[in-house]
């Protein structure tokens, strides 16, 4: 038992030395995660700013001017053109110069001023670039709220009865609906997974390529011990990286951490376990570092997309949703958001913890079996 501990510790020490003495792998572990954190923290956002739009006002009346002014005054909108003919719309949208065109019809003011406005309502047309449906929807919502405000103001000024139902929304968990609060906690899971998978997937392949793996196999180290020695570095590096990003998330990006930290770490540990299992599975199959790298990306890209990191799982077709149950990142993503925004603890998270434990156990067992049977 003691000699086993000595051997595994020696292997662990060697792995860390090899990892940190190599300037390439050292920089891979430090540089890219920070860059990704910055990219996602600052660049990945659902909010739209400076929506380029054009006005096609056929009305020219004072009221239509007021509506134009409402858009001009909105901080999210930026007028790029004023059009005088319908033919100008297509080139503007085609060239993406404008995301949307607001078309105020000829009789807009007339109709508003007519006594029976409720019956004839003034049409206001919005032509929008639907190529990116997500952006279009968001922009539409902004337009809608500006028009709503305009309507309400108009009605109060005239002493008209207000609309029967008025929508008043309060966002729970994220009062200002900051997309950063949604994204940044997810990055902890994503980056920890990348580090863990890369470290574990490459370590055996590198030794195979350099011919040192045979040398390792002829030592009294048993396959299980080698597996352990190869699994621990990835696990520990994932844990360290997760912690650093966690601190940045809370201290720099100011995302509130409301739930139980032990529960979060329990989730991280189980999640890394399944990551290590997948990494070892890749490395037991890959003969060269290139294959290992390809294998790692083949696993990571679907794992991230299916995790609900950026798009809700509920929107996926049923069979894809079924596949997401195999993705450990799916469960950890839930844990992260629940702990950060909902303030969840162990009681709520148990349903997310055991699937990761199961995935980890399965991948590790499979990797161990492959290790023993793929010695040739």
């Amino acid at each position, binding site marked *: 038992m003691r000699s086993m501990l000595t*051997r595994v510790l020696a292997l662990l020490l060697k792995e860390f030395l*090899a990892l940190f003495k190599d300037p390439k792998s050292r920089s891979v572990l430090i540089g890219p995660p920070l860059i990704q954190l910055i990219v996602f923290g600052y660049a990945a956002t659902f909010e739209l700013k400076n929506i380029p739009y054009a006005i096609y006002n056929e009305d020219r009346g004072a009221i239509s001017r007021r509506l134009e002014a409402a858009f001009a005054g909105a901080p999210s909108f930026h007028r790029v053109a004023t059009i005088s003919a319908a033919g100008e719309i297509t080139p503007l949208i085609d060239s993406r110069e404008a995301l949307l065109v607001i078309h105020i019809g000829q009789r807009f003011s007339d109709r508003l001023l007519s006594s029976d406005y409720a019956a004839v309502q003034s049409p206001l047309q919005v032509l929008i670039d639907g190529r990116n449906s997500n952006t279009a929807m968001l922009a539409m919502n902004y337009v809608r709220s500006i028009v709503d405000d305009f309507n309400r103001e108009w009605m109060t000024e005239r002493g008209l009865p207000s609309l029967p139902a008025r929508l008043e929304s309060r966002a729970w968990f994220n009062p200002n609906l900051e997309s950063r609060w949604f994204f940044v906690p997810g990055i902890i899971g994503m980056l920890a997974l990348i580090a863990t998978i890369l470290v574990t997937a490459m370590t055996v392949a590198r030794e195979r390529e350099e011919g040192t793996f045979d040398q390792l*196999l002829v*030592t*009294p*180290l048993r396959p299980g011990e080698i597996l352990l020695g190869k699994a621990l570095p990835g696990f520990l590096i994932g844990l360290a990286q997760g912690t650093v990003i966690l601190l940045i998330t809370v201290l720099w990006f100011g995302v509130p951490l409301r739930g139980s930290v032990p529960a979060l770490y329990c989730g991280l540990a189980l999640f890394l376990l399944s990551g290590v299992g997948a990494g070892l599975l890749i490395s037991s199959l890959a003969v060269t570092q290139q294959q290992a790298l390809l294998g790692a990306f083949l696993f990571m890209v679907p794992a991230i997309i299916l995790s609900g990191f950026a798009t809700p799982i509920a929107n996926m077709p049923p069979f894809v949703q079924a596949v997401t149950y195999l993705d450990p990142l799916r469960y950890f993503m839930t844990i992260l958001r629940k702990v950060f925004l909902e303030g969840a603890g162990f009681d709520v998270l148990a349903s997310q913890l055991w699937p990761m434990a199961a995935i980890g156990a399965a991948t590790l067992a499979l990797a161990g079996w492959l290790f023993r049977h793929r010695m040739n």
Partner: protein
Amino acid sequence: MPSDLAPILVADRLAKAFVAGQQRIRALDAVSFAVAPGSITGLIGPDGAGKTTLMRLTAGLLVPDAGTIHVFGLDATRDALTVQASLGYMPQRFGLYEDLTAQENLDLYADLQGVPKGERANRYAELMHMTGLQPFVNRLAGRMSGGMKQKLGLACTLVRPPRLLLLDEPTVGVDPVSRRELWEILDHLVTGAGMSVLLSTAYLDEAERCQDVVLLHEGRLLDRGDPGEMSARLTGRTWAVAAPERCRRRLQMTLARIPGVIDAIVHGDAVRVVTAMEGFPPALATLPEMADSEATPVPPRFEDIFVDMLSRHATAAHVPAIPHDTPAHDGAPVIRVADLVRKFGDFRAVDGISFDVRRGEIFGLLGANGAGKSTTFRMLCGLLPASSGHLEVAGHDLRHSAATARERIGYMSQKFSQYANLSVRQNLDFFASAYGLAGAERTQRIAWAEEEFDLGRYHDHLAGDLPLGYKQRLAMACALMHGPDILFLDEPTSGVDPLARREFWQRINTLALSGVTVLVTTHFMEEAEYCDRLVIMASGRILSLGEPATIKAAARSPEQPHPSMEDAFIKLVEDAA
């Protein structure tokens, strides 16, 4: 004499250095020589001598730091394109496309070289006839043996007949039969087609087949000239010492320590000795240990001259003490192999072999690429499970207790596979712990390794930056760290210079004398002579098993009264085919 003609290649004080890691390596240092047309010139030297650098400079692929190189009277650096047009260059790993057939490879190179379509049919027929590859034109290059690949590579280089042919170590990894055939092709090219050949090799016995040799060592020119004349300088200084009643390894160690002896190696039944002076030293003849021995003069070989030259430059090698207690050779077998089979799909890489290795024995596994020797070796070390049969190492059945058996074995492979980006000390530390050494024992064994292999001064160097000889020492130190009973050596001396090879075998001898069993694979026929017993394998079966002398004696014929190990090997393979 070809030297009457203007030389086809002239190198003048050629120098080239590379930066590797933290060191600046002088790959070539003021090397000057000329190559006569219509001959085979051999660039001879161990790995790291500068052979490949010289080849690449000749082909205009590198720019020299200093000096010039002229080919066909043109500057190879400035007129590289013109020179390359009449040059054929086959690098160490020739770029054959493994997924294409032999014919498709030929077509591809003919296209690249711009050989007119009309001339191709004749040229192909000629080349395929010459290389004997005609029956295999439709085989994928990836499915060919090492020897066939080299011949195909040569054919591709020759699709457009060059005036000067550059071959960089064409015989590495090639079995002795194909090696002999390759040399016949080269002789034919020079005498028949008047081509000039510049060929590099680390095999010193190949020097004797060249008309002219250039001897390189660590980037310096040691000597050049006619190989026969060079070896002739040692006439009267080479001997075979035989003492039938004595252990030849002890005899070799005794002889090696006597002043005036430059070289002493086990060769079959006898010990081959090179003396510093002409005539057998009287001091030697009067030694008490030499009482019942007999010294007969033997013709010098090219390797002798190389060793003679190197030993003048080299510092005294570490000479290990002769161990006193000599356990009997014929103890119980420590390795037992019975009806061993290894299948890969339908292919039987090892097809029912059986042999025993006794304690303290040096046992050799010899065979061409694909003969099954590496597969056998890997099964013995527990790196590969057997398909069927019995395998027992140090009293442990590898099927059940491989890990326990591994505690008793040391392993050293030809790649000297230590961790290149760890320091020497970190490597030693790791392997000591991996073998379960701890506490005072660990400290003591690491100190022993640093002392015994003179690794102390490279303590903090990265293993990957070590000179080749020291890489080999480190590999051996790691393999011996835990004092194993059995040492497995996989082509342990490929590429190292003859002095380092001797030093290495010196250690192996000492180990064997102290009771360590050594199992070695090699393709150096010369090294087979150092073994107590060996097996020769082909197509997964054992062709012959026995002492080197017996195996050689079996190949004796009226045409060949004194066959070498290579002759015996070729005869066995040809008889089996």
